[in-house]
């Protein structure tokens, strides 16, 4: 009986101490600076290897480096890349005429970039992708490249 009472009191006192410790911890934390970043005003630095959606690379003349080897299309697990092209006269390689990424089904695995033997693909560093329309995510890569004012038509 006596030990029961003692353990009872011990539990009350120990419990109260544990509660006060917890409150002390949260209070102490409240004097630290916030770790969050106010997103639209400040952004974090993207790491070097950030895997966004893909983007075509351009060569020195501004052509897309893609040689339409179809490796990326084959490597894609989600079948979201469509490439087509032809071999113009006087060019040593094929030139892409269609390069479409269906970003709605892309799983951002990066297997396409890895499969590219011609260093023609890179990861975009864009992540603010939001839209109300699904069609906005069927991206024409050549058009995007053109818009970057590098690619010659």
């Amino acid at each position, binding site marked *: 009986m006596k030990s029961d009472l003692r353990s009872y009191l011990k539990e009350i006192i120990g419990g109260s101490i544990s509660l006060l410790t917890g*409150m002390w911890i*949260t209070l102490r934390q409240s004097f630290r*600076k*916030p770790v969050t970043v106010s997103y639209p005003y400040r952004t974090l630095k993207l790491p070097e290897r950030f895997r966004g959606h893909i983007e075509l690379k351009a060569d020195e003349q501004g052509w897309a480096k893609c040689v339409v080897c179809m490796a990326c299309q084959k490597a894609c697990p989600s079948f979201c890349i469509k490439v087509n092209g032809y071999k113009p006269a006087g060019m040593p390689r094929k030139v892409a005429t269609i390069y479409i990424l269906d970003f709605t089904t892309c799983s951002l695995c990066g297997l396409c970039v890895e499969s590219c033997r011609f260093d023609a693909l890179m990861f975009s560093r864009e992540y603010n992708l939001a839209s109300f329309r699904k069609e906005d995510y069927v991206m024409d890569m050549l058009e995007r490249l053109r818009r970057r004012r590098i690619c010659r038509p």
Partner: protein
Amino acid sequence: MPHDWLWETVRLLLYLVGLIGFAAFNAAYLSLLERKEPAWFQLRRGPTEAGPLGLLQPVADGIKLLGKQLLVQGGADVLLFKIAPVAVVIPSIMCLVLIPFSETMGARDISLGLLAVYSFAAINVLATMLGGWASHNKYSSIAAARVVAQNIAYEIPLLLVIIALVMVTHTFDLREIVAQQAGGFWNWNVLRFGASPLMPLAFLIYFICMLAEANRAPFDMVEAESELIAGAFTEYSGMGFGLFFIAEYVNVVVGSSIGAVLFLGGWHCPFGLLPGLHWFLIKLYLLCFAVIWVRWTFPRTQIYGLLNLSWKVLIPLALAHLIVTAVTVKLV
């Protein structure tokens, strides 16, 4: 005299408007504090976008709630369902009427003020239970059953503590109780060791019971969002929910005010200097801060753990305190 009677009516009406405003203001800005304070604890920023430092956030919340339709679920008891939020908020505001804010401020003083406050507080429980029951939702029904069990369990130690206090002060009049504590913090009831050495403990019991009575975490069995979704309030939308929300914060304010009045010397300065409304408000908001602080630190208790705490810890301790007080009052 007709003149006095007229003046008294106008005064009461003014107080009523003022108190409703006070309640609304507190509900709004305690809800902001409820979002800012955990943000400090959790190394976040809390709301920042609405107004400077997010100060207009409660306004945005209020507009949002007002703009929402009050949906009534099929099968619900429509009358009770609609009465419940009103019935929960009115007694909370009624309690404010009885609180002496300062020497000169206070809507109404009655000699049994303390009793009246707790009578009103009991209606609150009934209304919450009604809302849960009328919702026609199983989660709400469970919450309705819980709220009754919880409030019955916690009213006992609460009232035991208060009875002990009344034995010391010899009055139920809140103004009189504050008046007795004038002249520095050593005269406050919380440190009135002359009456009972367990007074600080009594204050602690009061604080815990107040949390439980206001259904605040860690005793928020009624809401228990990880178990009962939103408990008794699950089916409420728009201002139906908004009124429960207001009532919760007004209850916190009432509980903290009574705590300040009974134990912390009401409007008196801790150093016996200029008493006034500001001292009362400082004590009130410190207690509110503590209430929110507790909520954002601890896990929720379990319903039976909560009842165990009441019956096996708080009631025995409160009884011990009562006996000690009775003995000292008799002897001294």
